[in-house]
């Protein structure tokens, strides 16, 4: 056991929660909206329940989390809230049926777990936070358990933008939206895709942002050479602090071979009742087209390297035990890492462990339990390492080296290739033309009349939505490519239409109104940010 008052090092757990804006009022149900509903049930609500436990039990735990503007806007949207509630009610119906069906069999324990899980989700969603999960995160931020960051307005890939006004708009629109949802400005930001290029920091400074995260080599390859490598924050030339990702703690969770989520006792993602169930039974719980899809109830565990048909029944109790064990292992490794680093560096390291939030719960079902165990163990069982957030760390340690971090991202190979390659490079000439046109609009119409202002606001929304890095990412991964192409082209088409109608002075109010109804993000947007 560590002796002494100061720890060997600090651990900053960081979750990046993001989904592209997938609200589709033009359809009564839409597959991509399910991304949101699944993430709410599997990730965001379990995280809120974990935070609730921290508050109830007075756990000295804290972590940092981004909630991107599109995610906040969707969480606060009444139509999506109602659709999610309807989804939850149907899932609760399904759990009742499943309890009966699985009675006496090896799947019954999982069915019981789902019954409780969806009931808890509904209680948290509907009763506790009035159907708006942002309220929950705001509450726990005010209580000091979580530091909520913002992100680019629509997760646009900043280093691949051509105009300064577009980079500035991504940051300023995000900061304004954050104020709307959280009642104060953001202290920190998760740069979209962790993508940095020298100079980006000055736009963060303009928005009053104090810190951001960057990949390991963003700091390690910075200039001048960083005295503490990626294990202490650095100040950029603008004065904004950059915290670098720790590769080792990332690998322990992310790695497909060594990572915890691949354990044999954890829930298998690819066996879902939506595909396994008897069709007549499951059909009422599918979309109205009747096509089999995931419904969110999975009864098998990973088992091992076996075919999907040979997966064994999932045992929630065993999985929970394994999550506790993995949390202990992760903490043990961080303790030793901190001790070693302190001996080498001569100062307490700040180990930054960032992950996609949706890994915890959606992909790794037991992930929220892992986080819960981990943070409670760190708080109660030891004192070698201490949980921290960037504002806390910067408040405690105020002198840091100043460097210019290197261009980098957290994508494959560490730079921009995931978002710039043969599968998606065609989008940039169009996005950049729209950037230039948007800047032109803001300068042409400094004092627009009412309808012009509506058109300019909508043009800004369409440009922002087209810039979402998710579309380029999806084109690279090869999944759902048509949807990504459609979203890119549709938003650009709408933007170009608005631009031409504005400059040719032939605005069509019904069409503008239709677009406002479809793409209703950022009601507070100010197009002058592009001037």
């Amino acid at each position, binding site marked *: 056991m560590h002796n002494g008052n100061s720890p060997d090092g600090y651990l900053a757990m960081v979750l990046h929660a993001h989904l592209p804006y997938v609200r589709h009022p033009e359809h009564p149900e839409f597959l991509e909206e399910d991304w949101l509903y699944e993430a709410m049930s599997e990730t965001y609500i379990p995280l809120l329940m974990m935070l609730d436990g921290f508050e109830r039990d007075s756990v000295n735990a804290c972590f940092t989390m981004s909630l991107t503007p599109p995610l906040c806007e969707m969480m606060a949207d009444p139509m999506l809230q109602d659709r999610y509630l309807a989804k939850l009610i149907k899932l609760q119906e399904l759990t009742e049926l499943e309890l009966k069906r699985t009675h006496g069999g090896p799947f019954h324990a999982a069915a019981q777990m789902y019954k409780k899980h969806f009931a808890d989700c509904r209680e948290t969603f509907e009763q506790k936070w009035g159907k708006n999960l942002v309220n929950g995160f705001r509450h726990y931020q005010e209580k000091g358990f979580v530091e909520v960051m913002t992100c680019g307005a629509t997760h646009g890939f900043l280093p691949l933008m051509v105009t300064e006004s577009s980079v500035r708009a991504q940051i300023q629109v995000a900061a304004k939206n954050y104020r709307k949802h959280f009642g104060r400005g953001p202290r920190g930001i998760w740069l979209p895709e962790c993508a940095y290029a020298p100079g980006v920091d000055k736009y963060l400074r303009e928005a009053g942002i104090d810190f951001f995260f960057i990949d390991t080599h963003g700091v390690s390859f910075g200039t*001048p050479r960083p005295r503490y490598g990626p294990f202490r924050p650095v100040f950029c*030339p603008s004065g904004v602090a950059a915290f670098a990702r720790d590769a080792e703690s990332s690998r322990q969770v992310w790695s497909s071979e060594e990572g915890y989520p691949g354990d044999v006792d954890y829930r298998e993602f690819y066996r879902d009742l939506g595909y396994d169930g008897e069709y007549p039974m499951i059909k009422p719980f599918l979309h109205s087209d009747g096509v089999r899809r995931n419904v969110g109830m999975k009864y098998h565990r990973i088992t091992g390297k076996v075919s999907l048909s040979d997966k064994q029944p999932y045992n929630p109790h065993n999985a929970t035990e394994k999550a506790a064990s993995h949390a202990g292992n992760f903490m043990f490794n961080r303790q030793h890492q901190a001790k070693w680093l302190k001996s080498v560096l001569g100062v307490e390291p700040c180990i930054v462990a960032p992950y996609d939030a949706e890994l915890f719960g959606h992909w790794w079902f037991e992930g929220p339990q892992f986080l819960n165990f981990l943070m409670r163990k760190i708080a109660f069982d030891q004192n070698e390492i201490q949980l921290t957030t960037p504002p806390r760390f910067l408040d405690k340690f105020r002198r840091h080296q100043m460097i210019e971090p290197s261009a980098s991202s957290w994508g494959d190979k560490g730079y921009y290739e995931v978002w710039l390659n043969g599968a998606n490079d065609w989008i940039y*000439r169009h996005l950049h033309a729209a950037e230039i046109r948007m800047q032109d609009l803001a300068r042409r119409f400094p004092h627009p009349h009412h309808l012009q202002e509506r058109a300019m606001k909508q043009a800004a929304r369409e440009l922002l939505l087209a810039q979402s890095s998710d579309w380029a990412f999806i084109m690279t991964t090869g999944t759902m490519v048509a949807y990504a192409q459609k979203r890119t082209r549709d938003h650009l088409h709408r933007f170009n239409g608005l631009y031409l109608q504005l400059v040719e002075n032939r605005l069509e109010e019904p069409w503008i109104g239709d677009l406002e109804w479809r793409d209703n993000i950022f009601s507070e947007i100010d197009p002058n940010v592009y001037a």
Partner: protein
Amino acid sequence: MTLKPKARKIVAPPTSDANAAQGDQPPKGEALQPEAAEPDADDSKKSGRRKLRAAPPSRPAAPESTRGVLVTLDERLKVLEKLPSLATPPELDSEMVTAPERAPRPSVPAPLPEEPTPSELIDRGSPIPENYGMDRLAAFPRDPQWLFVYWELQGGAIDRLRFHHSAEIIDNARWVLRVRAGGDARATFVDIDLRIGQWYLHVTPATTFVIDMGLINQQGHFVEVLKGKEVSTPSAGVSSICDERWVILRDELEKLLKASGVSPELLSPQPGSERPALPRSELPRAIGIFSSYLLQQQGTEKK
């Protein structure tokens, strides 16, 4: 480092016709509301997901009464009580088939009620212009060794070129990208195909380039048509520049990084020897809220 598995559903094959820009069509209100009648935009992803399903076991026919949408929970419970558990091979219980609706029980399993398959229709979105009436050249780094360059020549540059040069010269010209690095007056010329509109250039890390586009005339001189801005490639290794107040040897830093799990590929050494520390006047300066911290705390924390 791994590619984060953000994309959720599995699996439509990659498409190759992404660059399918269509003609500019200034919209009219009535023509721009097609979505309500469009097929689902998600069609492309539906087919792949099924590949991951276990092969469905051959099952006997479900009774008529279980087909279609059952309206109430009670009705569903009645049916589900009699459906087999996933744990056991499904075997139809004769009690499940109610007399009035029962068809003669087949001697061999009948097919399941027909399940709809995902639509084959793919909607790749609305038309966008092929060009924007501009003359422009843009270059971006993809990584330390590659730049992406694209251009558009629709803003009158070609017409101006024709004013000064004969059609024969222009039509037979060698179109090139001129690549100049780090203020070096020497240039490298890369032949391009003008029609393609974009190019990837293999370059050196941590270098600033200026890329221009033009043609080589019959005298062998470069005629500039599009002027580019500066673009820098990222660093691919630990910097050789040290801050005298925060000294760490390159070897030590690399050892630190290796021990912390950084991929060796990201630690490729940069050529050249160590450089002396920059004088303080050349170091970046702190501004903003943390600058006062620097002044106040300097020397108070043991380093």
